[in-house]
């Protein structure tokens, strides 16, 4: 029990500096804007970051192995268009349309994964190419137009509301939190999770220790694709429409959240809790600046600044640790 507790404290300590950052931001905005701390606004803030968060969960798995996925935004748009299209154009039942959309998304994840593991291409280049190809396919499929007119049930995942006591909580927010908890368990409690860290920490050593590195990497790309498909369903449902231009740059916001949350692009470092805090920081920042009537152009700048500061703090901490060693 002693050891268990110590380990928990340790995990918290690892995320302490970002947690402090989040608290400072929250305090700042609650002083400067009286609307910030209302329950309605906080739920709204969470709703705004649902897609970034869901993509970041899958992205973290990939980044922990030392890979990266730049195709998530385009994949979100294409899968959304396919789901909506099957429903509206082909007249398939809602459930079947969604299922087919997921199948297509998983297929795209397989292509990413196979290119990285079997063809041994660089994840950065492969997913950059996929980003462009999938965006192109989305435009071709929809002929550049918006697809809408899905039945009410289709939109529930993205637009539904669940009543808990007196609170009306949007379904995507519950989904986001549930997915983060599942992600945390998979990453910290399963064999696969441990293997993900090992592969990212030292690929060669993990391979020689008997870990099937390629299978682990493949699995991360498929997990990411499944989560991207969830994000597609949420986004399409919330807008009650699928747009070929949807989710542009979503992967970068997600990667930003992971990096702010202590993830390292060279792999092996980062965790779910940190990423969740990273997502919240982005959400609070966008929401708070919006409340203060500051132009969204500035919020993009602020997001970049926070990444810079987060990486700087991390680098300083690491150098300190190294000097002590």
């Amino acid at each position, binding site marked *: 029990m002693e*050891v268990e507790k110590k380990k928990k404290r340790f995990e918290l300590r690892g995320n302490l500096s970002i947690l402090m950052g989040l608290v400072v931001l929250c305090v700042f905005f609650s002083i400067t804007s009286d609307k910030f701390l209302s329950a309605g606004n906080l739920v709204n803030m969470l709703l705004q970051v649902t897609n970034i968060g869901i993509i970041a969960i899958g992205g973290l798995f990939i980044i922990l192995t030392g890979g990266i996925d730049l195709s998530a935004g385009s994949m979100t748009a294409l899968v959304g268009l396919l789901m909506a299209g099957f429903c509206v154009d082909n007249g398939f039942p809602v459930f079947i349309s969604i299922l087919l959309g997921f199948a297509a998304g998983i297929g795209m994840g397989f292509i990413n994964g196979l290119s990285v593991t079997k063809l041994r291409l660089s994840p950065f280049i492969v997913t950059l190419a996929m980003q462009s190809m999938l965006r192109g396919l989305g435009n071709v499929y929809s002929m550049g137009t918006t697809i809408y007119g899905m039945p009410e049930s289709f939109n529930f995942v993205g637009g539904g509301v669940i009543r808990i006591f007196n609170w009306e909580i949007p379904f995507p927010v519950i989904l986001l939190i549930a997915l983060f908890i599942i992600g945390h368990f998979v990453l910290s409690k*399963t064999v*696969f999770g441990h293997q993900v860290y090992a592969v990212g*920490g030292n690929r060669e050593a993990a*391979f*020689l220790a*008997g870990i099937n590195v390629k299978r682990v990497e493949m699995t991360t790309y498929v997990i990411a694709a499944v989560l991207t498909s969830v994000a597609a369903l949420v986004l399409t449902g919330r807008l009650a429409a699928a747009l070929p231009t949807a989710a542009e740059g979503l992967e970068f916001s997600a990667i930003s959240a992971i990096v702010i949350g202590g993830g390292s692009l060279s792999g092996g470092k980062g965790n779910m809790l940190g990423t969740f805090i990273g997502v919240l920081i982005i959400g609070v920042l966008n929401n708070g600046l919006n409340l203060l009537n500051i132009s969204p152009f500035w919020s993009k700048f602020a997001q970049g600044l926070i990444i810079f500061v987060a990486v700087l703090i991390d680098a300083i901490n690491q150098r300190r640790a190294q000097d*002590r060693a």
Partner: protein
Amino acid sequence: MDSKAMLELNNITKTFPGVKALSNVSFTLNQNEIVGLAGENGAGKSTLIKILGGVYQPDGGTIELYGNRVRIADTHFGIAHGISIIYQELSLVPELSVAENLYLGALPNKAGKIDYDTLFRNSKEILRILGLDISPKTKVGGLGISIQQLVEIGKALARDAKILVMDEPTSSLGREDAERLFRTMKSLKEKGCGIIFISHRLEELFGVADRITVLRDGEVVDTRYSSDWTMDSLVFAMVNRKIDQFYPKRTISIGEKVLTVENLENKLINNVNFSVSAGEIVGIAGLVGSGRSELLKTIYGVNKVRKGRILLSGRECRIDSPEKALLHGIAMVPENRKVEGLILSSTVKENVVLSVLKKLAKYSFVSRKEISFSADRAIKYFEIRTPSGNQKVLKLSGGNQQKIIFARIAEIEPKILLLDEPTRGIDIGSKVDIYNKILDFAEKGAAILLVSSDLTEILGMADRVLVMKEGTMVAEMDIKDADSKLIMDYATGGR
């Protein structure tokens, strides 16, 4: 010897939070002299080197260079004042030529255009001093590791360094290559250089150093002329205890044949045949690049088998990945623990259980309790010195790191153990610990293949010796008939 002091350290002290790394260390290096620096890991050798390199600043004490008091403020000081530190890790650019590497950062040029004539002429001169018969235009990446090591020394010469500090330059070299390095060191000494030489192989210190200084727990224990030390007194000074049995001996009964290799062939090895029995330790000797490591990696499923077969207890097995090898009870300690062995950024615990995660798991969930239990047991059995299982492996000494890899392997209870340089670059205390554990494995019936560049290790541990040369097995001998000269004759083709 008529020599004058080049470098003098007086009462150097350096404290890190919680650790006194060096206390009152005094040390002199004269011209025309090689001083050996001995000590276990953690004795303060690397701290001392880093102070000379300007990486750390001492908290107390003075440094005198040719009689003048100096402050080595940063890493540039050495370049400007003829002190060159040659670290264990090579810092060569593989894509550039030998000449360009030698003068990296100081390429001779005319108005910004590289003066290749001067570059190649100067480089040829340096290669001559080093005794290297290669063209300065050769790409460094294509050279063997031992030659790269010499090029690294050449870099120091190119900067006109008179004081050379060499941190375990021989740790990745075979005997032949090490000998060449020693010849070069001696000729540099004759030319007026002073060299500080660090090695874990004590016989090398005796062979090349004029004086040997021993560090222990951050203090200088003693400095004597090499001829005034004996192997025993040196070891005693280093570890402060008598190691009566450096290579422990036990009678272990040899059982049935466990591993048989028949006509094994691929790109790197050629028609290899041998077998190992339960409880037997078979040493594999040979020069670096003779195919020793490649043979182990082929059995372990890393390299593809092109021809021939591998039989485990008489049954043919196709092993095409380490994952499969482990399932068959074959485990390997790889040659380079930092690159191939450990997840350095991860904890001791995680590294110990890495190969048995599935075994510890229930429905693919692993509990922290299971991991801690296995890891703590292994830490105790292997006497790994770590504050806790949650310590990052990065922060442990080489000896403890190597024990972690052994602990990982013990978890799978191997039937066949492939050891590639299992004690390279680790302190004597850990070495003896590891030798004892190897014998424990043998006692439990494991068949063991031991690859080592340290012939005394092979002669001290093995029951039988195989010698490899250019991918082929050239000799097999019982330990009773083996001696280092005979082995080297086979390994170099002198026989």
